[in-house]
C-alpha cells in the first residue's frame, strides 16, 4: 500500500522535472521578431537579453590562470553594462577537459579552454559550436595560420585560438651545457654523462615519441573516418622505420638518459641532477627555479639515424577556447570566447602565465619574445607538425615508446608493424 503511494509520488516528481526540463530549447528563435536586418547583431542580442545571463567558464586550475581569467571576465562584463551576467569560472584540468565535457555535454561549461589534441574528440561528439560568425574581431585573420588551421576541421573553424605554446622543446642549464652541446642528443648526453648529470624526456609518451619519427621524415596522421595513416614501419625511403627505432633505443640506452614524466623531471631538475629536459611551457616556472641564472631553452636537438644527424620534430600544440554546442546562451558564450581570445586578452594571459600567444601581433611584442621558452618554441616551429591524430594513436604509440625505451625487443620490424596496425585500426 505505502509502497504504491510512494511510487506514485516518484512518478509525479519525475514528470514534473521532465516537463520543466523540456521547455528550454528552441525558445531563442522566438525572440527575433520585429528586428531590422541592418541592426548590429550584438545590439540586437543585448536588446533581446532580458534575463541575467548565466555562463560557466572552465579553464586551467593554476592560480595564474584563474586570476587572469577572472580579470578578463570582469572586463568583459564591463563592456556590456546593460546586461547582467553571472559568470562562474571553474577550475579544470585541461588534460581531462574532453572527458569531462563528454560525460554530459548538456551539463558542461558554456565556454571551456582545451588543448588542440582534444578538438577531434569534441567535434566528433558534436560538443563544439562552430565559429560561424564573428563580431568583435576576426580570429581567422588575427591568429597565425597554423593555429587557425589547427582549430578547423573540413574548412570550418570550431574554436577560438588562444595560445600557441602547447608544444615541446628543450630546457637546459647553460651553466652545465653549452649552446653547442645541446645541438645534438649525442653531444648533450655525452657532456651530461661526463659530469654525472642526466637529461630527461618522456620517450614513452606518445606525444613526445612522435618527434623522432616525424624528424626522420616518416608520417603519421589522421586520414579518413578518424582512422590514422602511418608509415613508421616503412622499409623503403631514406630512413626506414627500423632505423629510427634503433636510434631511439640507442639514445635511451645512454646512462645519462632518463625517460620520465613531467613531475619526475621537475623533481630531478630541482635536485640538480637533471640538466636538460624535453618539456613544455607549463614547466617553465619549475625549470626557472631549478636552473636559476643558468635557465635556458632551445629547439630540440638532432639525433643520429644511420650515421646522419636528423633534426628531431615535434607536435605543435595550441590551446583553444571552445563554445559548448549545448549552451543555453550561445550568443553570449561566443562573444565571451571572442573577448577571451582577442589581442588584449592574449597579451594579458601571456604575461600572467608565460604561455605564447597565437595572435600574430601579440606574438611579436617583446613581452613575449623575451621569454626563452617561447623563443625556443619559435625555433622549433619549422620542425613542428599540426596535431592531426585519431584517438587510436595514443595507446599503441605509448606502448611502442615503452618498448623502444627498454630496448628488449627482438624484431624491431615486427614491433613497428604491430604498432602501426594498432595506430591505424
Amino acid at each position, binding site marked *: *500500500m*505505502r*509502497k*504504491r*503511494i*510512494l*511510487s*506514485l509520488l*516518484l*512518478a*509525479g516528481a*519525475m*514528470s514534473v522535472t*521532465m*516537463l520543466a526540463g523540456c521547455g528550454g530549447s*528552441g525558445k*531563442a*528563435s522566438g*525572440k527575433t521578431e520585429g528586428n531590422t*536586418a541592418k541592426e548590429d*547583431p550584438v545590439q*540586437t*542580442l543585448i536588446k*533581446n537579453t532580458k534575463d541575467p545571463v548565466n555562463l560557466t567558464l572552465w579553464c586551467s586550475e593554476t592560480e595564474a590562470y584563474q586570476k587572469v581569467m577572472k580579470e578578463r571576465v570582469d572586463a568583459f562584463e564591463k563592456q556590456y553594462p546593460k546586461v547582467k551576467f553571472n559568470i562562474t569560472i571553474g577550475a579544470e584540468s585541461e588534460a581531462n577537459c574532453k*572527458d569531462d565535457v*563528454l560525460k554530459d555535454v548538456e551539463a558542461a561549461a558554456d565556454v571551456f579552454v582545451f588543448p588542440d589534441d582534444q578538438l577531434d574528440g569534441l567535434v*566528433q*561528439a*558534436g*560538443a563544439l*559550436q*562552430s565559429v*560561424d*560568425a564573428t*563580431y568583435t574581431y576576426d580570429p581567422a585573420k588575427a591568429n597565425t595560420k597554423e593555429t587557425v588551421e589547427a582549430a578547423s576541421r573540413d574548412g570550418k573553424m570550431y574554436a577560438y585560438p588562444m595560445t600557441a605554446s602547447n608544444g615541446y622543446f628543450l630546457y637546459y642549464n647553460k651553466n652545465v651545457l653549452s649552446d653547442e652541446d645541446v645541438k645534438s642528443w649525442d653531444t648533450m648526453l655525452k657532456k651530461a654523462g661526463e659530469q654525472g648529470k642526466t637529461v630527461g624526456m618522456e620517450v614513452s609518451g606518445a606525444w613526445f615519441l612522435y618527434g623522432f619519427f616525424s624528424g626522420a621524415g616518416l608520417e603519421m596522421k589522421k586520414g579518413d573516418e578518424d582512422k590514422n595513416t602511418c608509415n613508421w614501419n616503412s622499409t623503403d625511403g631514406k630512413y626506414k622505420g627500423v632505423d629510427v627505432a634503433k636510434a631511439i*633505443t640507442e639514445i635511451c*640506452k645512454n*646512462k645519462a638518459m632518463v625517460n620520465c614524466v613531467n613531475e*619526475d623531471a621537475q*623533481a630531478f631538475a630541482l635536485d640538480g641532477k637533471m640538466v636538460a629536459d624535453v618539456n613544455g611551457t607549463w614547466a617553465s616556472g619549475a625549470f626557472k627555479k631549478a636552473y636559476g641564472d643558468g635557465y635556458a631553452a632551445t629547439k630540440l636537438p638532432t639525433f643520429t639515424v644511420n650515421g646522419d644527424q636528423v633534426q628531431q620534430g615535434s607536435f605543435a600544440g595550441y590551446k583553444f577556447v571552445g563554445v559548448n*554546442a549545448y549552451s543555453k546562451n*550561445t*550568443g*553570449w558564450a*561566443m*562573444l565571451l570566447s571572442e573577448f577571451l581570445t582577442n589581442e588584449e586578452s592574449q597579451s594579458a594571459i601571456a604575461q600572467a602565465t608565460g604561455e605564447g600567444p597565437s595572435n600574430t601581433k601579440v606574438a611579436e611584442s617583446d613581452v613575449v619574445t623575451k621569454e626563452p621558452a617561447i623563443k625556443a618554441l619559435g625555433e622549433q616551429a619549422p620542425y613542428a607538425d599540426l596535431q592531426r591524430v585519431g*584517438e587510436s594513436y595514443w*595507446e*599503441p604509440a*605509448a*606502448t611502442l*615508446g*615503452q618498448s623502444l625505451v*627498454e*630496448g*628488449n625487443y627482438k624484431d624491431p620490424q615486427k614491433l613497428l608493424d*604491430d604498432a602501426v*596496425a*594498432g595506430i591505424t*585500426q
Partner: protein
Amino acid sequence: MTGKIKNYFAGFAEAVRKGDRWTRSSLLLFGAGYIGRGQIIRGILVQLIQIGFIWFTFGFSAQYMMQLPTLGTVQREETFDPATLAKTVNDYDNSLLILLCGIIGIFFILAYILLFFQNTRRVYGLQKRAEAKEHINSFREDLHTLINEKFYLTLLSLPGLGVLLVNIFPILFMICVAFTNYDKRHQPPTYLFTWVGLENFKTLFTSSQTVTFGYAFIRILVWTMIWAFAATFTTFIGGILLAKFINDRRTRCQKLWRSLFVITIAIPQFVTLLLVGKMFGDYGIVNSICSKIGLTGFLKSIGLVGAGLSYIPFLSKPGWAHVMVILINIWVGVPFQMLSATGILMNIPNDQLEAARIDGASERQIFRKITMPYVLFITGPSLITAFIANINNFNVIYLLTSDYVSTNMKFANSNAKEPDLLITWLFNLTNNHSNFKMASVIGICVFLISAIGTLISFARLIKGNREEDFQ
C-alpha cells in the same frame, strides 16, 4: 510453480465471472470496488495511484517507449543565425534518454498489470466477505496491519524504492547497452545509437591483429581470478596469524599493538594507496633508496630487472606489478582481517581449548586442529563474499597502476593493460574511451561470474533452514 500461476489466474477469472457491479467496475476504475464496500479512503488512494500511473505513462514514458525499437531516428541539427546570435535546434531524439525512460516506462507498465490482477482479486475477496457478512476493515484497521502482519511492506518500501532507483534501473539500462552500438562514434545527445544484437559479444571473443578483445579478455579474466584468489587468501591467513600472534598471552601490551595496526585503516584507502603508488614509482623514494644501497644493480645482475631499465619497475612491468599489487593489498587488507579475526578468536569456546591442553596437545596442534577449523567454519561464507569483493576491487588496482604503460600491443589495442582487472578495464573503457558497448559486455561477464559464485556459496545459507535453528 505453474500450478501456482494457474491458480492465480483462475482466481482472477472467477473474480471477473462472479464479480458484482462494484468488482467489475474496478476492472476499469481500480478504486471502485473499495468505495463500494465502504472503504472510501482506501478506494480514493488506489484510484489516485491508477490515475498517477496513467498520467505518468501517457504524459511521460509513452513517447520514449514507442521509440524503443529504433532508439530514435531524428539526429540533432542546429542552425545558428549570425544576425541575432540566436540558435535553433530541431526536435531531436536522444537515444540514451529513450532507452532509460523506455525501461522505466516498461517497468511501470508491468507494475500496472500486476496491480490490475492483484487489485481485481482483492476487490473480489472483499465482495465475498461482504456476501458472507464478514467484517470489512476500516481504513484505520488497514493502517494497523501495516505495522503488524504487513509490517514488512512498511519496512521494505523505502529501501526497495532506493534500490529500484540506484540499482535496478541502472543495471537494466547497462545490460541493454551491451546490445547497442553506444561508443565514441555514437554518443548522445548529438548522435544516435541503435540495437546491434549480439555483435559486441562476438567482438569480445574475437582476436585479430587490431581487434584484440578476445586476447585481452581471456588474460585479464585469468589474472582477475588469480588476483581475487591470492588477495583473499593472503589477507585472510595474514590477518588470522597476526591476530593470533597479538592475542597470544605471551604478548605484552596487546591493545597497543592492535591500535598501531589499526592506524592504517583510519587513513582513507585512496590516500594511502596513492601514496604507496608514488613511493614505489619508477623514480619514487623506494627506487632512490634501492639504487643507493645497490639493490637495483644486484637485481639487474641476476636478470630480474631488464637491462634497459635504471630503476626497479615495481608497478610498471608485468610480473613485478602483479606481485606488488598483491603485496600492497596485504598491507591494506591485513589490519581489517586482524580486527575481525580478533573477534572470532576471542569467541572460541574455551572448554574445547582447555580440554585439548589437558590432553597434552601442543600450541601448534591446537591451532591446526581447533582454531583454524573453527575460524574457517565461521568465516567460510564471508570468505566467498571477500573473494567476490576482490574480483571487483577497483581501488587497489586503479590507484596503484594509473601510470602503468603496457608494452604489449595486443593489450594496448583493446585499451587494456596487464595488471588490469575486468572492473578497472571496463572503467577505463567507459571513462576514457566512451566505449560503453564493450564495457557493458564485460560488465555482464563480471556479473555472471560473481552471481554464480555467490549463488553457490549462499545456496546453503538461504535455502537451508539454518536461520530457524538459532531462534
